[in-house]
């Protein structure tokens, strides 16, 4: 398999990580917590999408919308129940709460749905590009033929749509501008008459909607199981921190860096060590925190 193919895979992975990472980083910037349960929001969204696509059954695009709405509702309910009451205790208790909540939700899903993976039936068209010449250097093929499926295009297209709507939201609407203001300085925002709790709630809903979309896209790409979201949470987190925690634009860049790094390390590592590709993402994360802890576009996270 050539490098071109791996880049396609990397961009697809980067796309759904980016959607989730935007939600994750918005929560970080405005609620000021690392939400470790965020992966479970993806799983729940994926299950809502799966159930409405197969059990009801709804057409896939409507199922995706249902998953997004479901994700938003789940997110605000969980936030109201678990995070809002302890909002003023600081980042560490919030992080620990989200870890506990994540364990509980993940295993509750396992309890209800079992361990098995489920698949969403889709009709896929594959576009092949076989005419591309091979440019081999050593064992690695630097170009080579590749294919793009309609699923790939849907994932990438949704990601671009999300980027554009988030940009529009943050720059053109009152709510979005208030979100950015709160991310900069919460007290100042409150002085200016912004209802901070309302904005916090809308961030939770928005993050849940994005999680639902990312989850259902993962489900279409691969499958749905109780660990769908959890297996991606560290990548989402790496992307968000790489981009500069709190910055949605940074998160997009971070997500594509992580996605490409994962795909390329799969390509370049010997086949017996492809499992190391996730370690590569974390190594990037640690390197970023050591060299430039503020990420590509974010705030300082060092104390001393």
């Amino acid at each position, binding site marked *: 398999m050539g490098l071109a193919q791996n880049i396609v895979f990397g961009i697809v992975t980067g796309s759904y990580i980016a959607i989730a990472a935007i939600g994750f980083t918005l929560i970080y910037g405005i609620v000021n*917590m*690392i939400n470790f349960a965020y992966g479970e929001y993806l799983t729940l969204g994926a299950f809502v999408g799966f159930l409405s696509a197969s059990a009801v059954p709804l057409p896939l695009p409507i199922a995706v919308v249902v998953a997004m709405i479901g994700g938003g509702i789940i997110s605000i309910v969980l936030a109201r129940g*678990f995070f809002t*009451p*302890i909002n003023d*205790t600081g*980042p*560490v*208790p919030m*992080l*620990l*709460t989200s*870890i*506990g*909540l*994540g*364990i*509980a*939700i*993940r*295993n*509750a899903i*396992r*309890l209800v749905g*079992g*361990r098995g993976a489920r698949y969403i039936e889709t009709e896929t068209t594959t576009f092949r590009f076989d005419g591309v010449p091979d440019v081999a250097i050593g064992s690695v093929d630097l170009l080579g033929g590749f294919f793009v499926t309609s699923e790939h295009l849907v994932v990438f297209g949704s990601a671009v749509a999300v980027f554009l709507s988030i940009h529009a939201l943050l720059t053109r609407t009152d709510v979005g501008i208030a979100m950015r203001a709160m991310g900069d300085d919460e007290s100042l925002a409150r002085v200016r008459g912004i209802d901070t709790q309302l904005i916090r709630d809308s961030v939770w809903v928005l993050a849940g909607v994005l999680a639902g979309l990312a989850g259902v896209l993962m489900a279409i790409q691969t499958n749905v199981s109780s660990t769908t979201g959890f297996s991606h949470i*560290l990548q989402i*987190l*790496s992307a968000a*921190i790489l981009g500069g925690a709190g910055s949605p634009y940074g998160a997009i860049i971070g997500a594509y860096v992580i996605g490409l790094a994962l795909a390329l390390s799969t390509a370049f590592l010997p086949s*017996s*060590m492809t*499992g*190391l590709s*996730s*370690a590569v993402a*974390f*190594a990037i*994360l*640690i390197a970023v*925190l*050591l060299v430039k*802890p503020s990420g590509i576009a974010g705030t300082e*996270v*060092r*104390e*001393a």
Partner: protein
Amino acid sequence: MSALDRLPSGDGDRALIAGTLCLLVGGLFAVTPLQAQLPGALYVFVEVGITFVIFGMLVLGLDLQYGHTGLVNFGHVVFFAVGAYATAMLAAQDSFAGISLGYPWPLALLVGVVAAALLGLVVSATSIRLRDDFLAIVTLATAEIFHSVFVNFEGIFGGNVGILGVPRPIAAVAGDTDTRMIATILVIGGLTLITLAAVTRLTEAPYGRVLRAIRADELVTRSVGKSTIVYKTQAFVYGAALAGLAGGVFALYNGAVAPGFFTIQVTVTIWIGMLLGGAANHRAVLAGLAVIMGLRLVSRFGLSVTPVSGDVFAAFRLVVVGLILVAVIRFRPAGIWGDPQELGVDR
């Protein structure tokens, strides 16, 4: 003056004496023909008890880092794993996979502790300045990296199989299974008690006061002339070394190490145990850990009387464990036996 008056009174000294006694009695069971009888129903208690005393060393080390110094180490399992792997690879003979060097086990155990401490030094040298929640993420990521390294470098670490053929010093000298189990829990429990004595000494000394001052307010501590970074690094390395000791002891008790023993679940268990009991109080964190590990017993017994599968029961137990963590932080942030004022969570 009676003999009783001359007994030391401090917590640390009492733990030291109890620990030494346990070690001696355990050693006695192991090396002499003395035999112990263990009723069949108690096997599972002793088994969970051995895991508890090993995890006890982990939670004491973590409490030194988080409870006393305020370092949020969410990858504690990595030091446990590195200690265990280093010990196993040095001591193992003819392992099925991975490196086995066959050196004497005391040397291997020592190297295990040193390896974990060195890793702790590297992690703290690079990351100790990060904000709390980001330190948590770096340590967590470190643990995940090592986990996948252990799984993927089959030639060195034995992949998913791990390292087999690690010598089991107690099993080698003990007569039968019952005696072996009793001797094991006594010896390792003795080690844990001695650890308790050591950390109690450390934290009751002025040194411990500095650590707690850093937790309460780092800026003030620095302003009175204490190099907080040095203290934080030391606390982190001590905690890592203790985890390495626990890992080495685990390898020598279990006779094998594999990635499956060193998942994030270990970190979560000891964190919940520590928070439930009450951070910054050595006996409280051990008690909290006992409660959480007691749940394992409940689920084992529950499993035999209910008609559900083991997987369902495990999932249910983890739901409960997760909700306990959430509830503790929400309603009792100082833990059951912790001191809210000292932990600065007075609400």
